[in-house]
């Protein structure tokens, strides 16, 4: 088991290295970082000097090595645009994105699970079919359209909910939360719903098909034949057996939720990492963009490690199986 964990860790490190390289090389070539620093009237000489000082004239491998060495020390450089340490910038933005992503994941999980179970049990019912059809409409709606639609209905027409930002936030140490103020809670509603929508339909459909699959197994049929009540069958047997894949997928989806927030945060002007990323792309703020990609990579790696661990705990049989090379 330790060997398994070790291998996971090595793989994680390799993945991180690959992500770092992609982040670095992608943004090394895009746009002109010099332009985002100096303004309207800077001369050619200023530009050349700055380019040299920032090390943009060095050979690529040297730049990448420097990038890695610095990143390993938590030094992600100074934002070209804001002149502030990137690590601090990300730290500031992190709570907004985490809060949004966690609430969205929670909403998607709870509602998705409920609806999934319901549509599986009543799979020929009218409501279940309506829900299933609605979920398809949901999958076919681009996130940005959902956001625009919500803003139009709830901010412009009804004026119930704020259309942008986090509202008032409360500071708890280095963490900030919008959950403790009314305007903060109101601001969370639309972005959370928008972001949760896709994952919700995904989880719902997954739960439904997994449950249908399980309910067809011999063991459930047998249970039913023994006269065990439907409710017990549904929740004790079927749902429980559905949980392993659901937990896995949900875990993996959490990573996507954080990155998927790019679009949602842009639409709602949410002061999180995704919005920062888009802004940075617009101004070619290389250090911020690179750091963001590394952050998403890190989330992915950590989530994967955790999922592996959860697997081990949920299903002891995998312990020995997973110790063997995956073939």
């Amino acid at each position, binding site marked *: 088991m330790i060997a398994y964990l070790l291998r996971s860790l090595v793989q994680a490190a390799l993945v991180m290295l690959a992500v770092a390289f992609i982040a670095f090389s992608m943004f090394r070539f895009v746009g002109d970082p010099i332009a985002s620093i100096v303004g309207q009237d800077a001369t050619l000489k200023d530009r050349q000097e700055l380019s040299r000082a920032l090390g943009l004239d060095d050979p690529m491998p040297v730049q990448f090595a420097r990038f890695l060495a610095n990143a390993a020390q938590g030094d992600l450089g100074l934002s070209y645009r804001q002149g502030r340490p990137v690590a601090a910038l990300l730290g500031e933005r992190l709570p907004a994105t985490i809060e949004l992503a966690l609430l969205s994941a929670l909403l998607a999980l709870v509602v998705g699970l409920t609806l999934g179970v319901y549509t599986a049990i009543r799979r020929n019912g009218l409501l279940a079919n309506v829900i299933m059809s609605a979920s*398809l409409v949901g999958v076919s709606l681009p996130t940005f359209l959902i956001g625009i639609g919500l803003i139009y209905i709830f901010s412009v027409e009804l004026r119930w909910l704020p259309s942008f930002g986090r509202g008032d936030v409360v500071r708890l140490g280095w963490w900030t939360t919008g959950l403790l103020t009314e305007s903060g809670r109101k601001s969370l509603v639309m972005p959370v719903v928008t972001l949760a929508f896709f994952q919700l339909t995904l989880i719902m459909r997954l739960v439904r098909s997994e449950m249908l699959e399980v309910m067809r197994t011999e063991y459930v049929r047998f249970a039913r034949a023994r006269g065990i009540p439907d409710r017990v069958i549904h929740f004790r047997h079927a749902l429980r057996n559905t949980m392993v894949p659901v937990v896995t997928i949900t875990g993996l989806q959490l990573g996507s939720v954080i990155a998927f927030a790019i679009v949602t945060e842009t639409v709602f002007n949410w002061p999180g990492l995704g919005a920062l990323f888009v802004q940075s*792309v617009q101004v070619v703020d290389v250090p911020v963009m690179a750091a963001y990609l590394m952050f998403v990579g890190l989330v992915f790696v950590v989530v994967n490690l955790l999922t592996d661990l959860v697997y081990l705990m949920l299903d002891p049989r995998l312990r020995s199986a997973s110790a063997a090379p995956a*073939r």
Partner: protein
Amino acid sequence: MHAPVPAPAAPPKGRLARFLDSDLFYSFRTSPMAILAGTVAALMTLAALLAGLLAPQNAFDPAALNLMDGYTKPLEQGLGSQGLFVLGADAQGRDILSAILFGSRLSLVVGVASVAFSLVLGVGLGLLAGYVGGRIEALIMRIADIQLSFPAILIALLVFGVARGLIPPHRHEEMAVVVLIIAIGLSNWAQYARTVRASTLVEKNKDYVQAARLLGISPLPVMLKHLLPNVAGPVLVIATINLALAIIEEATLSYLGVGVPATQPSLGTLIRFGQQYLFSGEWWILLFPALALVLLALSINLLGDWLRDALNPKLR
């Protein structure tokens, strides 16, 4: 949603064509939703393919537009060209109907081509992984894991950025569609690879493969003959659903402003422009392209959904 169908017999092995002829088509005929979705998708595809003939205006030719037609309301005549604008005109005097036809054509081309790209890539890598095994398999599947965990949109942005860096600036626009196809294609191949690899692993341990090995014959051709029909169903399902996803992905990229050039708007570009008029009363610039996009994605999704159920009779 689906009419009850008598439990189908096990699909006849080997011939895809016969399979299509029998159960699948029967299932299609008896599912009103599938017929509706299929009809809508077929009509929209046809209209998009014939955009050059059907559209009142060449929406991709800036010189064909008359700026004075800008913001013409639906069913009204333009100030500049005096033409009738059934769905209205955008800020540039572009006929929305024509723009939707040309735009869906672009969206479909990008969608189909990127799905084809990821299908070939995914099936190929899946076969390779399953057949060769070992380190190569581990590597491919690890990359597939990464791809599946990162949202497609992020991967596409990434690929897009890399391509931007590699292609000289003045060729960006002509390469935009190709870059888009590759970007979206590269972000969606892992599912095929997983499915095909799983089937390959099953097939590899069958007796005939072992037998071929013993005889010293390369088992690959025989295996492919058995394997491909088996994976055709699931791959088709994934491809259909991915087509809808690819269309949405293209729209999102264009919405974020990294897609096709503004003078050749896809549905996402049209929505990006239309969003500016959310409050100014020119609702048609946003609404019609948005409806077209949703309708296109929805009908393809419905088809994919039906296809999955139809090919997976267990679930019925």
